[in-house]
């Protein structure tokens, strides 16, 4: 292999920077373009990017070298209540010691695993917290994590149940187990993984060395969730690294682990598929053994696995040896594998997570059916196809939506059931369990009864049915309130506020007679939320305080406190009390952490509440980060394509646009549209999302597409009587027309929207500033400069007043200032132009974090540069143009006309 030439390295360094900063899709597109222009450069970059994959995968240089302090541990030393006996392993993760209890209270021996990772300040906390969660995972087939701690010298360690066993593949071979016995043993593995998945813990690194069989033939899984535990904090979001950056074993890694995709329970399903494949055939599904990591990555990501029956039946000594270890011959093995086993493995090993078995239970079910010679559920590819067909036939609000809804309740139940194993007060656990089971009963009843085979039913049907069931007097009054709450909240989700309000009022009234503060608080706060959404804010606020004030301080009420605080945050947001909204959302987050529950779904709720609060307060960067977190969490849960995920993406996309990052915004909004389209068909995509997307496209100067989306959004808004969306569409279409040079068209749009704004909004609303700004831009483009200045002055005035009054507006002021600067300059009012631009930049400095970019700031720099140029301050002008080019390149892309123009002005190479 050729060495890298230093000169060449320096030449392509900048391109490599750029490539590393892109996500996979963007990078692929960019490279494809580059390949046409400069094939040599493209192939060199490709080589280095492949190298990067290997680097990330191998965690190259991530384990620190041994330091001069020497081996840190010695026999006889104490770690917590344990005394180290002897080392039993050493490696990249650190050393492993056998240890026993010092006080001799139990004769149990444990393994102490010292991790050679550095945990700074907050990292230690996280390590202990997540360790505590993993320690709750208790199952006969899972090696118990007894404790996770950090020594006095800040070295993290794990105390684990010591397992004396053999790797599962070696065990099976040594015992010459046949296919059925191997599958039976594997079913024990599945039971353990299923148990962990029910607690939302994904293993992430399943492979033979983590699956041991002890002397008595029992299976033990090691290192459950440890891969996650070792993940660096602050890595999330970095495109440079594979998500879940823990050291992977490429042979057993799922494609999404190698391509930075989200890690879900489906990831374990894939690894289990590989493990089963190896147990049954003795070979890896990708074929050739012992490849380099880079080749292995390529094989896992790109090529389909080979059919099991083809592999085991192949000619040659190797096949014979493998078959012999399974007590059979190759041709017999092939007959056993052909058909169902082939199908089962193909399904588990799908590249696309959504196409795999939906759960470990489903995989286990098919394996059991195979052992009993019953027909298996998986059919080669046809099932998903049929399901797709069904959805397409029944576009309207369809059963699938309800299933998602019920699944989300099911998820909460799954979480709450953990309370039994958690060390939380017993009565709390029992109450949650009763609550969960009551709701579960309702779901089962409503669903099974309402679903005559194949017939579509709507969310409304189901809720109406549920409401009837709830209406019947139920035994326990507390149960009855819970059911009312459950159905009422679903009506709220469906935006059926009148119906929700009716049920929740009843629930609240009945709850007052109950002794349980938890139910009382939830009833009050659920009602508060609905009232807040339907406009009765004073009463909503009062009910929120009533609910929260009613709760005792004890930890067992933490979840209820979080529930109330989240709703309180939303109410504060609706009243415009941004600081209260933030404080309440943050308090909800703390309460959730204090509850000791690990529920990703509840995390999503608080992240969304927080994001909304930040947005109201104008803290857009924080809002964007919180939306991103919520979106990633949902994806990790396998709910990345639900309506909820779509809504979050929409809000995130708008926030990015406000931040002046149309490129990212467009990408996020495109995903929101795709989800909505896939779920419910083209016609039901919300007009607001379409219009938001059009706006970001317009900023990218993708004008034809933008016009198309804006018109579709407008048509749909008109149909549905959505005045807000319709108003927005006029603004967006005006912008598009202006960019296209159709000034008359732009003015028509603005004339069309003005009467409606005047009718529905108070004078001084920020919308009128936008209107004036848009008119100013058209006037400027038409050469009517004096008029343009007058209009822009109005826009600035309204935004200033609005900001002073504490309303929205501050966000827009800086943009209007930049626009006014351009107009001033055209009028040769050079100093005024420079002053406006400088003020805009100053305001924007507080907007982003260091290292973040904004196209809006780019425009302000551009204006400043032109003004400085006109003032004859050439050096400052160049500096401003350079800044503008940087901002544009990161937010609009290198190909954008503004980027090119700014670079040209700054005399930078294109």
């Amino acid at each position, binding site marked *: *292999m*050729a*060495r*890298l030439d*230093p000169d060449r*390295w*320096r030449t392509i*360094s900048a391109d*490599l*920077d750029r490539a*590393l*900063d892109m996500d996979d899709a963007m990078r692929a597109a960019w490279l494809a373009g580059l390949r046409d222009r400069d094939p040599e450069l493209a192939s060199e970059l490709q080589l*280095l990017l492949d*190298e*990067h994959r290997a*680097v990330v995968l*191998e*965690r*190259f*240089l991530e*384990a*620190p*070298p*041994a*330091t*001069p*302090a*020497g081996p*840190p*541990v*010695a026999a006889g030393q104490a770690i917590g209540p344990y005394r180290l006996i002897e*080392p*039993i*392993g*050493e*490696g*990249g*993760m650190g050393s*492993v010691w056998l240890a026993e209890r010092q006080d001799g209270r139990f004769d149990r021996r444990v393994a102490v*695993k010292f991790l*050679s990772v*550095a945990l*700074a300040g907050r990292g230690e906390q996280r390590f202990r917290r997540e360790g505590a969660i993993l320690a709750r995972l208790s199952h006969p087939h899972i090696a118990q994590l007894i404790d996770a701690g950090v*020594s006095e*010298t*800040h*070295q993290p360690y794990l105390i684990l149940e*010591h*397992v*004396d*066993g053999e790797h599962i593949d070696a065990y099976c071979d040594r015992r010459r187990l046949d296919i059925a016995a191997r599958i039976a043993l594997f079913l024990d593995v599945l039971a353990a993984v299923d148990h962990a998945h029910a607690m939302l813990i994904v293993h992430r690194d399943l492979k033979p*060395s*983590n699956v*041991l069989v002890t002397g008595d033939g029992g299976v033990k899984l*090691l*290192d459950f969730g440890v891969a996650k535990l070792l993940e660096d904090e602050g890595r999330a979001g970095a495109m*440079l*690294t594979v998500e879940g950056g823990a*050291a992977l074993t490429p042979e057993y890694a799922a494609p999404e682990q190698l391509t930075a995709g989200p890690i879900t329970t489906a990831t374990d399903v894939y690894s289990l598929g590989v493990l089963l494949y190896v147990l049954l055939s003795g070979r890896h599904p990708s074929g050739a053994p012992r490849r380099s990591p880079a080749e292995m990555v390529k094989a896992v990501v790109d090529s389909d696995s080979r059919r099991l029956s083809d592999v085991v039946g192949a000619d040659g000594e190797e096949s014979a040896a493998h078959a012999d270890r399974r007590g059979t011959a190759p041709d017999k093995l092939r007959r056993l594998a052909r058909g169902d086993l082939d199908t089962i493995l193909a399904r588990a090993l799908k590249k696309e997570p959504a196409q795999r078995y939906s759960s470990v239970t489903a995989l286990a079910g098919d394996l059991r059916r195979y052992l009993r010679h019953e027909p298996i559920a998986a059919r080669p590819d046809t099932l998903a196809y049929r399901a797709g067909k069904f959805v397409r036939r029944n576009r309207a609000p369809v059963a699938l939506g309800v299933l998602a809804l019920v699944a989300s309740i099911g998820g909460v139940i799954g979480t709450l059931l953990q309370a039994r194993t958690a060390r939380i007060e017993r009565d709390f656990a029992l109450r949650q369990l009763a609550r969960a089971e009551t709701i579960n009963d309702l779901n089962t009843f409503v669903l099974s009864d309402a679903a005559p085979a194949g017939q579509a039913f709507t969310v409304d049907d189901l809720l109406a049915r549920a409401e009837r069931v709830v209406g019947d007097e139920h035994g326990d009054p507390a149960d009855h309130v819970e059911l009312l709450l459950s159905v009422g909240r679903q009506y709220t989700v469906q935006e059926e506020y009148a119906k929700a309000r009716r049920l929740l009022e009843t629930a609240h009234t009945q709850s007052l007679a109950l002794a349980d503060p938890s139910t009382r608080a939830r009833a009050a706060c659920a009602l508060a939320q609905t009232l807040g959404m339907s406009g009765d804010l004073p009463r909503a606020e009062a009910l929120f305080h009533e609910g929260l004030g009613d709760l005792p301080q004890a930890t067992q009420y933490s979840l209820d406190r979080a529930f109330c605080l989240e709703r309180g945050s939303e109410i504060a947001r609706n009243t415009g009390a941004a600081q209260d909204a933030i404080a309440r959302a943050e308090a909800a987050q703390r309460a959730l952490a204090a509850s000791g529950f690990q529920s990703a779904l509840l995390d999503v709720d608080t992240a969304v509440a927080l994001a909304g609060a930040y947005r109201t307060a104008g803290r857009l960067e924080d809002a964007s980060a919180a939306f991103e977190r919520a979106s990633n969490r949902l994806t990790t849960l396998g709910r990345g394509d639900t309506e909820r995920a779509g809504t979050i993406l929409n809000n995130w996309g708008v926030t990015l646009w406000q931040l002046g990052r149309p490129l990212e915004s467009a990408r996020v909004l495109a995903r929101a549209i795709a989800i909505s389209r896939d779920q419910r068909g083209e016609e039901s995509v919300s007009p607001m999302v379409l219009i938001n997307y059009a706006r970001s496209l317009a900023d990218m100067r993708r004008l034809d597409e933008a016009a198309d989306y804006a018109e579709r959004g407008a048509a749909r808004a008109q149909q549905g009587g959505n005045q807000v969306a319709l108003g927005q569409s006029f603004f967006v279409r005006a912008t598009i027309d202006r960019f296209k040079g159709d000034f008359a068209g732009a003015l028509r749009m603005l004339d069309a929207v003005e009467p409606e704004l005047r009718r529905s909004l108070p004078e001084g609303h920020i919308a009128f500033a936008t209107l004036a700004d848009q008119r100013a831009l058209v006037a400027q483009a038409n050469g009517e400069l004096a008029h343009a200045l007058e209009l822009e002055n109005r826009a600035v005035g309204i935004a200033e007043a609005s900001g002073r009054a504490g309303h929205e507006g501050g966000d827009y002021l800086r943009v209007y200032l930049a626009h006014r600067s351009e107009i001033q300059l055209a009028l040769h009012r050079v100093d005024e132009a420079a002053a406006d631009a400088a003020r805009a930049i100053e305001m924007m400095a507080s907007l982003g974090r260091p*290292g973040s970019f904004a196209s809006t700031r780019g425009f302000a720099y551009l204006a400043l540069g032109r003004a400085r140029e006109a003032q004859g301050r050439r050096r400052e002008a160049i500096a401003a143009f350079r800044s503008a080019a940087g901002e544009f390149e990161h937010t609009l892309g290198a190909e954008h006309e503004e980027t090119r123009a700014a670079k040209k002005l700054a005399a930078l190479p294109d």
Partner: protein
Amino acid sequence: MEVASLSASLSSIFVAAEHGDAAADQALFGRLYAELHRLAQRELARRGAFATIGVTTLLHEAYLDMATSEGPKFPDRPRFMAYTARVMRGLIIDHARSRRASKRGGEFEITSIGTEVRENVPDARMLTAVGDALDELARADATLAEVVDLKFFCGFSFAEIAAMRGISERTVQRQWEKARIYLHHSLRADLPA
């Protein structure tokens, strides 16, 4: 070269080394090496066998020690760290070599039972190769090599490195990724085909 003489103040050697004076560079390397070694031994004695002494801590203490005795002309902390990280690299590689020599058979013995063990711990041979590749990288892009010294050998976080240099964390992270690409490539280039 006069400034490289033993009696010269560390501050002046530092300045000369930074200006590309090869003799000063060597002298400085030697002085810092000895100093770091002494500190490591002291820490070891003070905290006992179970102490994993953080390299970062060591460097900060070294800085305090030297800056106190040298006075105000001593280079600021970021400049000191940027240079000393390279010295630390040498110390660590030497240490790994001596440890290897003291072990019969050289490589770490891996006695895995049950609890899973990884084999990617950087051993002496690999560290030496990384060191050589780093020298080569320093010629192509010194900044990248420095990031590796600070991050890998000295254990500074991205945030600390970013603060040291007054650049964004994102940029440091990108430099780190690029450096790893370069080194990985070099190391593989040295393998027999």
